[in-house]
């Protein structure tokens, strides 16, 4: 298993490498002078020259890339055009909010999704199964930003249970996390349901049942354990989606997260910030998938390369 973990970790390196190349090239794909893009239209000629020098833009591309990579590893992601502050500082403050949203969303989605999946599988083709599958279908189809608005309308405006903007206490996180996580509930519910159905029909479950084991023991200790594997995979894959999708939720709930930072940066053509946010989110995503894969191998020892 250790060998698997190590190979898996090593396999991530080329991906990270390629991701950084793409992010590096981003600024070069944009029409216009990359230095003007990096510094903004207001830049003074001296500053332009200095940046050109610092980034080594007169040098060949691969040397530029090397210094870009070294700067990243040193924690230097450049300076924001809009705020004139180091990008790393901007991101550090905001990353936390998005991470909380994405983790919270994943938790909500997995708890509710798995529960719904289990109930559906046990009550296969009965009313509850059909009902829950309709709910999960709705959850997959409703755009998160639309759901967010509906949640605000109901729970903030009419009922007044939760605040609608910002992140000043735990109550502020309830609606955004729910709005973000809901879209994954349906996926996970369906995944759990079919995985549960598969295992419930396996011989050893039938045997366990025949031996007179209580049903909840059968369901939770035998079936669920096996059903967890595909669910875990989906969770890992969805996490990145949630992290990127939190931009929409942050917009609606006025949360100053990395997603909103990215959108603002795109709208204001703040390229150093765009590069950094894209890099941060994708690297987080790759790392989370790595962790999930490793967990996967612990949950299911059969997985080995």
């Amino acid at each position, binding site marked *: 298993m250790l060998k698997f973990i190590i190979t898996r970790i090593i396999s991530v390196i080329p991906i990270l490498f390629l991701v950084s190349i793409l992010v590096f090239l981003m600024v070069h794909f944009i029409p216009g002078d990359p230095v003007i893009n990096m510094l903004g239209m207001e830049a003074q000629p001296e500053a332009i020259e200095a940046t050109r020098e610092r980034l080594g833009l007169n040098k060949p591309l691969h040397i530029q890339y090397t210094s870009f990579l070294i700067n990243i590893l040193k924690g230097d992601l450049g300076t924001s055009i809009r705020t004139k502050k180091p990008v790393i500082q901007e991101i550090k403050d905001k990353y936390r909010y998005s991470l909380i949203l994405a983790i919270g969303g994943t938790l909500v989605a997995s708890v509710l999704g798995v529960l719904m999946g289990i109930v559906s599988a046990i009550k296969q083709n009965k009313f509850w199964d059909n009902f829950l599958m309709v709910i999960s279908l709705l959850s997959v*189809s409703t755009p998160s930003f639309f759901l967010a608005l509906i949640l605000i309308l109901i729970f903030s405006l009419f009922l007044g249970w939760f605040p609608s903007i910002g992140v000043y206490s735990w109550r502020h996180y309830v609606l955004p996390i729910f709005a973000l996580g809901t879209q994954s509930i349906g996926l996970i519910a369906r995944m759990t349901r079919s995985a549960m159905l598969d295992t419930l029909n396996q011989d050893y479950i039938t045997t366990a049942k025949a031996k007179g084991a209580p049903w909840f023991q059968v369901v939770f200790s035998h079936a669920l354990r096996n059903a967890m594997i595909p669910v875990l995979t989906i969770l890992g894959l969805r996490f990145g989606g949630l992290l990127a999708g939190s931009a929409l939720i942050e917009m609606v709930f006025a949360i100053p997260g990395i997603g909103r930072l990215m959108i603002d940066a795109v709208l204001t053509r703040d390229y150093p910030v765009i590069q950094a946010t894209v890099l941060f989110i994708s690297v987080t*995503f790759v790392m989370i998938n790595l962790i999930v894969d490793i967990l996967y191998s612990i949950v299911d020892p059969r997985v080995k390369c």
Partner: protein
Amino acid sequence: MRQSVLKRFMKRKIAVLGAVIIVLFVFMALVGPYLCAYDPLDIDVLNKYQSSSREHLLGTDNLGRDTLTRLVYGARITFIISVTSVFIGSLIGMIFGVIAGYFGGKTDAVIMRATDVLLAFPGLLLAIAIVAILGTGIINTIIAIAIFSIPYLARIVRGSVLTIRNSEYIHAAKVIGASHLRTIIFHIVPNSLSQVIVNTTLNLGTAILTSSALSFLGLGVQPPDPEWGAMLSKAREVMRSTPIAALAPGIAITLVVMGFSLMGDGLRDALDPRSRND
């Protein structure tokens, strides 16, 4: 064979429901504009944010434009963006997938690493990054979503090519002396087509979600064009006094996405009965 696919599809009531939703919306997109009494760009500011009335069934928007009319024209934009982008993306993805699966070895490794990298940018992020480079607008939205659907298709098609590559009749085709291209076009592609159709249908839903999300963020279709996500974004400010302005486009997106999702599931069951979940 073909008839039995249709039969199996028709037997799934919920899948048929999905198909009906989609057909209705396509009909709306094609014929609707000729039935509308208003122009989607006609401004009548003094009658902005009206609630539902006989003149304006779904009320009016921030500039007094008829919401129903904009919804109908918006269906066009939605389908143009999603169908074009998914078609282009799927085609490119398919080509790469077939090449990777058929030739294997280094070609396969290179293509798969490339898809790995694209997949390392989760969901919306890739689309946003592409828009950041290209700029906003309908065409750029299409390109962004097309690129976004390439890696999924490439992987799926590669997988199905791998399973049939070693089958006897492909060997037979090679033995007869069929060229690579001939083998791919006449033997491999048709066999992975069912997978492609299913995933393309499901991708259409994702494409609509993504394009409306981009427009919602102000990065997609620009004003005054009526795009559902953009309409919803604008109507937020009157969510309370005129909720219909936001509900109408929101429900439209949800319905179409649901329609494609139901249809995709139905197609999967109909084309490949073994993969049924229950």
